[in-house]
């Protein structure tokens, strides 16, 4: 093989591989070649530099958009900080409360998955959501809550959502993963019933015309009240993995015990992603499969996904996602995954 200029080296796949350090054989081969042909070193050097610089440039171009928005956010945060410092006393009081709150938190560690206010970033801020007759619909509410509407379900959000509480009306079947907010109870009205939660996950099956409601609680706590005249009466309080079926006829709620698997199975019946950024996809998958996913390389975070998964195991979903961004994943334990 004749190498007369750096161009010749650039054309050689094995040489390029050795510059990119893809495999050891190529690296060793060219090292030996270099020692045997010192006159070619300038050309090899030129070619190698170009390859390395090109690689760095491409990386930089990919990082740039993210870096620019990080910088913008930083500037905004600094502005906000300055206005808060004007209220010295409020800041001190807040600090004291925070310390107290963290002490409480230390004594009552949350078993739940980390709260998902991050999903709020992807919310569409509408007041009416409806799933088609043949397809589910997922909703990211702007408080960070996540809702899966089964086929034909309808959700109407109260205009005062987020002020002193979080109210909405449901008809049909839906699953709710409620973002923690103790001050603003999350209330789902279905016909004569209202299901109230704070930071929990539960599924409702509402048949408002027949006045039937089935509540299945995955985690946390909910209360169910029924309206009689102008008053609300507490009908049921549920603990995790409990379910209750309420109907017009029976006065006593029928309760059942459920398993994580049953919830997961229902949730993952149909998982649809439509132009969803990777970050959103991972946050939602954490809810669907009750796991924790960490992403080591945030450069793939802006990639968007389109796809539908039906009854797929977490394993195959992770495989598909990682394949499309050229990453790998592994289970640290049964509930923790990292993508690297």
């Amino acid at each position, binding site marked *: 093989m004749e190498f007369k200029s750096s161009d010749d080296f650039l054309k050689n796949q094995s040489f390029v591989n050795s510059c990119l350090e893809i495999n050891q054989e190529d690296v060793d081969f060219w090292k030996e070649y270099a020692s045997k042909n010192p006159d070619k070193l300038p050309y090899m050097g030129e070619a190698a530099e170009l390859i390395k610089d090109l690689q760095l440039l491409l990386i*930089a171009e990919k990082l740039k958009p993210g870096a620019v928005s990080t910088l913008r956010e930083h500037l905004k945060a600094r502005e906000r900080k300055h206005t808060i410092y004007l209220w010295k006393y409020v800041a001190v009081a807040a600090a004291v409360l925070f310390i107290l709150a963290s002490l409480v938190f230390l004594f009552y560690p949350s078993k739940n998955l980390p709260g998902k206010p991050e999903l709020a970033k992807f919310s569409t801020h509408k007041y009416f959501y409806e799933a088609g007759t043949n397809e589910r619909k997922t909703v990211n509410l702007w408080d960070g809550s996540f809702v899966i509407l089964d086929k034909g379900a309808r959700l109407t959000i109260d205009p005062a959502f987020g002020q002193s509480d979080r109210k909405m009306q449901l008809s049909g079947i839906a699953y709710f993963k409620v973002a923690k907010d103790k001050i603003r109870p999350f209330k789902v009205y279905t016909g004569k019933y209202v299901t109230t939660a704070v930071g929990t996950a539960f599924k409702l099956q509402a048949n408002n015309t027949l006045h039937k409601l089935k509540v299945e609680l995955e985690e946390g706590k909910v209360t169910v009240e029924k309206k009689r005249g102008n008053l609300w009466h507490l009908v049921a309080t549920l603990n995790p993995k409990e379910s209750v079926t309420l109907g017009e006829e029976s006065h006593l709620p029928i309760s059942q015990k459920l398993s994580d698997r049953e919830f997961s199975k229902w949730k993952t019946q149909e998982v649809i992603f439509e132009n969803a950024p990777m970050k959103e996809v991972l946050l939602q998958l954490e809810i669907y499969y009750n796991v924790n996913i960490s992403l080591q390389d945030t450069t793939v975070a802006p990639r968007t996904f389109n796809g539908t998964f039906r009854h797929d195991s977490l394993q195959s979903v992770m495989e598909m996602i990682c394949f499309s961004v*050229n990453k790998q994943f592994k289970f640290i334990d049964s509930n923790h995954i990292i993508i690297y």
Partner: protein
Amino acid sequence: MNVNRTDAELWISFCAGDEESFIKLYEQYYSMFFVWGCKWLGGEHDFVKDQLHDFFIYIWERRAKLSVDINVKAYLLTSFRRQLFYQWKKHKKIEPSSEFTDFSETDESELLQAELVTEQFSKLEKALTLLSPAQREVVELRFLQNKSLQEIADLKNTTIRTTYNLLHRGISKLRSEINEKKFLWLW
């Protein structure tokens, strides 16, 4: 909206506190500084990325104290380089050399070298935009994702011959845009 403001203009309004000019400067120099940072440190992408962010925040905070009448590119590049090495030594727990003093002092020779070198880099950046989308994609797959020709051909559902041609033409175009004689990529 101001289009094509010169460096000097951006710098002046940045020093006066204009956030948009600041962001534009960041966008303009990001890739170049990242590449240089990684070349100087021999890799360390994450460290360079973080330092680049911190460096720009640092100059934002000191904007009122900076000299307005300077060669922006050279000034920023040499300042960044100094800051980067200082932080790197700290990171590696080596004694940071005492010559990291005030920002306003810059060496003449350093400025000249920075000028020369950034010329070449701008050409490469510009050359990249001259590639056709297909050429650009193949170049990215090859150099960014380290895929082999076969893998690229499979991914794009085409032949190795086509992939090779696209890649070769892309690289040739890049090379023809850069001055071949003065390949002063090394600092």
